Structure formats: structure tokens, C-alpha cells
């Protein structure tokens, strides 16, 4: 019954979203205040209806109602309750429903919050978002319905892939989706601005916090995914340039560019048309990411053949949404007045260059991800593009990008005289040179690339802190600086920290794969690893073998234990290795238990990894997200600064 209710709520939501897409929009066009005023209550009710639908599905999962096809195919009674709930978005239908729910939640905040938003703009933005929601709801109801019943109901479900039964992966999709979908606000703001032919600093000021919030979610979502990949897959890495990862990186890069250009527009009225285009582009890439991940086109181009309706439906949805927006852009962009002009050596200039870099990164990732797909679609053969391509194309660009990142905040809006700039560069430049000298005297192990990356990170840190000191060494300045400035300092420093972590972990990592018999010892990166034994155990919905290793450094060191597991999930007939890791400062040592020797059960394949400073990657990503969050604080005060 509850499932039918949820299904009905979703159908109602579709009707309401279509009304929302038309009535307030027409009202804004004709200047009818009453019609426009409908946008807010309609958006709030829409969110309510989709929430009912989502809760209905959650309820079915929580009670393991196997008369619902979607639940039967993705859940199991023995599954821990938390994974029963998160199983809602562990499958295609449920995750699209979550996607739609996120979209309506953003609408809810836009409608419910008391913003200084012009009534016409708010009505148009909500109306356009209603249109996007309508598209997705019709997809759910026509081609991807999670509420279909199964009769007779089986007694047991097929269970969720054990790789997905993990606390981090439980929250990774909602957080990432909140980011993906959050960019729809910017998308609709851009379209509304094109309709009104009005792109000005006030518009940018209204838009900026929404872009920032979506970007923070996106950053955290990617970070959670990478962390999960690091410890769960047990491959000794956190980023594999896998198309699914790239699908989330592309909108993040475009969103980062947008974040900067929208600031230039807010402060100086510059980069108007470009900002509008970026708004559309970022959400288009979000849609593309959803399409890539959710259509199954990535694992194999052929999976479309099995269910072409879904693939075509999502593609048409993507084409209509993005195509409509780009058409509108083509029609209206030439009529928008060009933004304020500026000198090349200025904050605007730095932001423009920053956008060029980020756009290039994004295009490079795009090519590397989609080229193999297109090649195969056109029957020109099949190729794989992997880490070597991305490392070779992206890392050289990182160096000028890092230099720019240090310089940008030192520059004033409109124009900075070369003399002023060179005075400001002096101290951080000298510090970086000192660092280079220190490295030359005490060579670091690793390739020249390692050193260059460390110097780049050093420069960003020195330059950012020098600028921070220059602006805050008089205490009165501390209060008058906008929160966005502190956010920028933290985020930029976070990027430097991330760069250090990535460089150290990839340059100095050590790994050892070997056969070990119980009782055996081996030395690994100056540590002694002893294999104490393997003990069977029973988990919640799996059985497991837990190996115990003791790791010591030197004779007196009490050391620590690593207990990697090998789990067997009987319902899915799947085996899964659970890594064990030990954090020491920012270094991580981790162990993975491999296969048994067929002749000698005491003998095992053991993989050991040591990644120096890898926790800095996580710390850096957290700082970047925290920076974004800080700049969300009280954006109004910025005007006086």
C-alpha cells in the first residue's frame, strides 16, 4: 500500500512539476504577480511529494518487501539495516529517484529561504528547475520505475554487491549527487538571465552561494569516493582515471572555473557571457556524468543493446536539456552587453587565465574519457586510455597553474602595476628559491618531477600565506576582510597540501607482493612484518578469514597489528578482500590478504603497501571543501569590503 502511495505521489509530482514549469514562467512573461507567486508554494509541495516517494521506497527496503521488484533485486533480509537503507541508491532506479529528490530539495531551499531575490528571477529559476524535474520524473515513471511489483513475491532477495556494502559508499552517492544536481541552480539562473537579458553583479551575487554550496558537496563527494577506492579496492591508489571517476571530475573542474568567474562578475561586472556559458556547461557535464555512469555505456558500449529504451531516453533528456540551453545561449548571448574591461595584469586577468587552465583540464579529461567510447561507437576499433595519458597531459599544465594560483590573490581588481606585483612576489619568491636551494643541497629521492611538484606546492603555500599576512597584519583588517577571502586562503592552501600528498604518495610509495607462510617474517621499508596467523570468523552477512600481521620498526618498537580480511558473501557468491591500514603521522601502511596456496593452506599471497604522506591528500581535499564552506558564511558583508 505504501509503495502504491509513493508511486502515486511521484505521478502527482510529475503533474505539479509541469504546472510549475509553465504557470510562473508565463506569469513572469506577462507580469502577472499572482502567477509568479505560485512558484514558491509549488516548488515546496513538489519537494514534499518526491520526498514521500523516496520515503516509500526506503520503507520498502527497510522492511525487505520483496514484492517490490527493485527491492528483491537489490536487497536481502540478512543485510545490516544501514545497507538496506543505502541499497535504495545502490541501483539504477533508486539512484535516479534520489537524483530527482536532490533536485527538488535544492528547489525547496531556493523557494523557502528568504532571499533578496527579485520575484521575477526567482519565479523563472524555479520554473526552469521544475522543467528539469519534469524530464527526470517522466524518465522514472516511463522507463525506470522503482515501484513495480513482483508477483508472487519471492521469499528472499538477490542482495547488494558486497563491494557497495561499506559505510563510506553509503554516503558517497547522496553527497556527490547533491553536488551534481546543485549545479542545476546555476544552470537555471543562467537561463533566466538569458531570458531577461540581464547579467549583472547583483545576479552574480545571488548566484554565488548556490554555486559554492554545490561545489562543496561535489568536492566532498569525490573525496569520499576516492577514499573508498583507496581502502576498499585495495589497489594501492585513490584515483585510477576510471571513466566513472572522470565523469565526476569534469563538472567539478568546470564548477571550479565557474566559482572564480562568478566572483569576477560579482565584484567587477567582468566575464559576463563566459560565466553564463560556464553555468550551462557545468550542469551539462553533470548530466553527462549521470548519463555515463547510469546508462552503463562505460563498462561496455554494447550494454545499450540489451535495454536501448533507457539509454535513448536519458540521451534525449540530456540532448533536450543541454540543447535547449545552448540554443537559448546562441539566441541571446549576442544581445548581452560585454562585461567590464580590465588590464591583463589584474585579478580579472588572473581569473580569466585560471578559467582557461581549468577549462583545458576539463577538456583533456573529456577527450580521454569519451574518445574510446566514440571510437568504438563508430567501429574504428577499441582502445583504452589510462593513467599515462592523463599524467602526461595534465601534469605539465599544473606548474603554470600553480604559479598563477600563488599570483592571483596578490593582484588587485582592474589593474596591478608591475612594480607593486614584484614587491609582493619578492618574499614568497625568495622562500621558494630557498626551498629549491635546500632541495638541491639535500636531494630528495625521486625524479625531478617530484621536486618540481614540491616547489610548486611550496610556492602556493608561501604566496598564499604572504598575501594573508600582508592583508591581515594590521588587526583592524582582520574584521573587514570578507569570509570569502579566508575561504580562498584555506582552499588554496588545501590544494598545495593535496599536491604534496599526491606527489609524495605516488613518488615514494613502496609495495611488496609475496607468498608468506604463517610464522614467517619479512622486511618491508625498514619495518619487520611477521605473519602471526589466520583465524576464521563470522560477520553479519558473510563469513571471513582474518589474518594477523605484526609490524615493528627496530627491536624495542612495540609495533602495531594489521588485520586484513578475506570475506565471503554467500548470497552473492562473491569474495571480497578487506584491507587493513595503519596511519602513522600522515603515512599509511596497509596490507591485503590474497589467495591461499592450494597445497599448503598456511601459505598466502600477501600484498603490503607503504604510502608516505598519503593522508595529506585527504587533508588537502577537506581543506578545499572547508574553504568553500567558510566563504559561504554571511555573504552579504562582502559588499562593504
Amino acid at each position: 500500500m505504501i509503495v502504491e502511495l509513493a508511486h502515486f505521489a511521484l505521478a502527482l509530482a510529475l503533474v505539479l512539476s509541469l504546472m510549475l514549469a509553465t504557470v510562473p514562467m508565463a506569469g513572469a512573461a506577462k507580469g502577472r504577480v499572482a502567477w509568479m507567486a505560485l512558484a514558491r508554494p509549488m516548488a515546496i509541495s513538489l519537494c514534499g511529494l518526491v520526498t514521500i516517494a523516496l520515503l516509500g521506497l526506503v520503507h520498502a527496503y527497510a522492511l525487505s518487501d520483496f514484492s517490490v521488484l527493485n527491492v528483491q533485486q537489490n536487497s536481502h533480509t540478512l543485510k545490516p539495516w544501514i545497507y538496506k537503507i543505502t541499497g535504495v541508491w545502490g541501483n539504477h532506479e533508486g539512484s535516479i529517484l534520489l537524483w530527482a529528490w536532490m533536485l527538488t530539495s535544492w528547489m525547496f531551499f531556493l523557494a523557502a529561504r528568504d532571499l533578496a531575490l527579485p520575484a521575477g528571477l526567482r519565479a523563472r529559476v524555479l520554473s526552469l528547475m521544475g522543467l528539469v524535474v519534469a524530464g527526470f520524473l517522466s524518465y522514472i515513471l516511463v522507463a525506470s520505475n522503482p515501484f513495480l511489483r513482483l508477483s508472487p513475491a519471492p521469499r528472499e532477495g538477490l542482495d547488494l554487491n558486497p563491494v557497495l556494502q561499506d559505510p563510506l559508499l553509503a554516503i558517497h552517492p547522496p553527497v556527490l549527487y547533491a553536488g551534481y544536481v546543485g549545479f542545476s541552480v546555476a544552470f537555471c539562473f543562467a537561463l533566466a538571465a538569458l531570458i531577461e537579458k540581464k547579467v549583472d553583479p547583483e545576479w552574480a551575487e545571488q548566484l554565488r552561494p548556490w554555486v559554492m554550496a554545490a561545489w562543496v558537496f561535489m568536492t566532498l563527494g569525490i573525496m569520499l569516493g576516492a577514499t573508498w577506492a583507496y581502502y576498499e579496492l585495495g589497489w594501492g591508489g585513490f584515483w585510477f582515471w576510471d571513466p566513472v571517476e572522470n565523469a565526476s571530475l569534469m563538472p567539478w573542474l568546470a564548477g571550479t572555473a565557474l566559482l572564480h568567474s562568478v566572483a569576477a562578475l560579482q565584484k567587477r561586472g567582468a566575464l559576463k557571457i563566459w560565466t553564463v556559458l560556464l553555468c550551462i556547461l557545468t550542469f551539462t557535464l553533470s548530466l553527462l556524468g549521470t548519463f555515463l555512469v547510469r546508462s552503463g555505456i562505460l563498462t561496455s558500449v554494447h550494454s545499450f543493446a540489451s535495454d536501448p529504451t533507457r539509454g535513448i531516453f536519458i540521451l534525449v533528456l540530456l540532448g533536450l536539456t543541454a540543447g535547449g540551453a545552448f540554443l537559448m545561449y546562441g539566441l541571446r548571448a549576442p544581445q548581452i552587453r560585454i562585461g567590464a574591461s580590465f588590464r591583463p595584469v589584474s585579478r580579472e586577468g588572473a581569473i580569466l587565465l585560471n578559467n582557461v587552465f581549468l577549462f583545458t583540464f576539463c577538456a583533456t579529461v573529456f577527450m580521454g574519457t569519451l574518445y574510446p567510447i566514440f571510437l568504438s561507437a563508430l567501429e574504428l576499433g577499441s582502445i583504452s586510455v589510462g593513467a599515462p595519458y592523463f599524467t602526461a597531459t595534465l601534469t605539465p599544465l599544473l606548474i603554470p597553474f600553480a604559479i598563477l594560483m600563488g599570483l592571483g590573490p596578490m593582484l588587485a581588481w582592474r589593474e596591478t602595476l608591475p612594480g607593486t606585483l614584484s614587491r609582493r612576489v619578492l618574499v614568497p619568491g625568495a622562500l621558494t628559491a630557498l626551498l629549491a636551494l635546500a632541495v638541491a643541497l639535500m636531494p630528495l629521492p625521486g625524479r625531478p618531477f617530484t621536486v618540481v611538484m614540491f616547489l610548486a606546492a611550496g610556492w602556493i603555500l608561501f604566496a598564499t600565506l604572504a598575501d594573508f599576512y600582508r592583508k591581515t597584519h594590521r588587526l583592524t583588517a582582520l574584521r573587514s576582510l570578507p569570509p570569502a577571502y579566508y575561504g580562498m586562503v584555506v582552499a588554496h592552501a588545501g590544494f598545495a597540501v593535496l599536491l604534496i600528498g599526491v606527489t609524495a604518495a605516488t613518488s615514494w610509495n613502496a609495495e611488496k607482493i609475496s607468498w608468506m607462510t604463517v610464522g614467517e617474517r619479512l622486511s618491508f621499508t625498514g619495518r619487520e612484518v611477521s605473519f602471526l596467523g589466520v583465524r576464521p570468523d563470522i560477520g553479519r552477512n558473510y563469513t571471513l578469514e582474518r589474518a594477523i600481521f605484526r609490524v615493528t620498526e627496530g627491536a624495542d618498537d612495540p609495533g602495531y597489528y594489521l588485520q586484513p580480511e578475506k570475506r565471503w558473501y554467500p548470497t552473492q557468491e562473491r569474495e571480497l578482500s578487506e584491507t587493513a591500514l595503519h596511519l602513522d603521522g600522515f603515512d599509511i601502511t596497509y596490507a591485503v590478504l590474497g589467495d591461499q596456496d592450494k597445497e599448503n593452506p598456511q601459505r598466502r599471497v600477501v600484498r603490503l603497501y607503504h604510502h608516505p604522506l598519503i593522508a595529506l591528500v585527504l587533508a588537502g581535499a577537506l581543506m578545499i571543501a572547508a574553504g568553500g564552506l567558510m566563504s559561504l558564511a554571511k555573504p552579504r558583508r562582502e559588499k562593504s569590503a
Partner: protein
Amino acid sequence: MKAGAYMPLILLAIIVALFAVPLVQGRDPAIIPSAMIGKPLPDFVLPPALPGGAPLESAKLRQADRPYLVNFFASWCLTCRAEQAVLAAYARESGVLVYGIDYKDTRKDVSRWLDAYGNPFAAVGFDDTGRVAIDWGVYGVPETFVVDSRGIIRYKHVGPLREEDITRLVRPVLEKLK
């Protein structure tokens, strides 16, 4: 400026069209004729990919008394990752032997990879130069061949084997050979 404003729309149209090609035509790009079908398997000797494994050589394969599969794969290949579970399940159920040839890879990566994704292979040959793959007419991984007990190549599958490919394409070939 005016025409330039339509550039994003044009680019989008091209991208959507490229995605639409395989969708609308509905053809299965997995079916690609191979010049090797009906020919005996080429001569080769490959060292084992895993420490302690047996070398893989054509002379030994020719002594087989029933049909088997030869699968070209690599640890750097993403689609091979998805294929691995299907191959493992099929090998376990049907008892058909599957020989693996590891294409342009390193020993370190492949042993780690087989460890993580399961090893369905009766033996794994290590073709780091890709020479043997050329003799087989392989131009990418994964590719899978069905070879009969006389050592004649009967079928070639390009791209990852999915469960339905096995039912629809591979199994009928094997049935016929019996």
C-alpha cells in the same frame, strides 16, 4: 560573434549524435568477422605470467581432447575487469578450460590484478611484447577465441564477454563442436 554563439550547440549535437549511433542502429558491434576463423591456432611459446605457473605453448594446447577458450586480457584494461567475473563463473559451471594470454602487461600488475578479480584461467601466458597477439590477429583486449580439439579456431569474440554473449554466441559454437 553571432555564429560563434551557436558553437556550443553544434558541439553538443555532435556529441549526442556520436552517443546515438550505437543506440539507434541497434546493431551489435561485438560481431566482427575474423580472418583467423577456420585456421589452426598459430605457433607460440609463452612464459607463465604468474610465479610458479606453467608456460603456455601451442604444442600443448594442440593435445587437448575437448574445445577450450583462449582469452586475451590485460590488467590495465577496464572492460577486462568486468569480464573476469563472467569468465570465472562460466569456467566453474561448464568445466570448459579457459587459457589466458596477458597482453602488454607487467608481471607485478597482472598478479595483483588476478588476485583482486579472480583467476579463472587454467594457465596464463605472458605476452609482454604483444607478438603472439599479432599472430592471433588480436587488435585490442579483451578478445576471446573458441578453439576446437583439433586446434582449429572456431569463433572469435571482440570486447568483453557478458553472460548473454556466452549463452547467445559462445555456447552454441561449443555445442556444435560436441
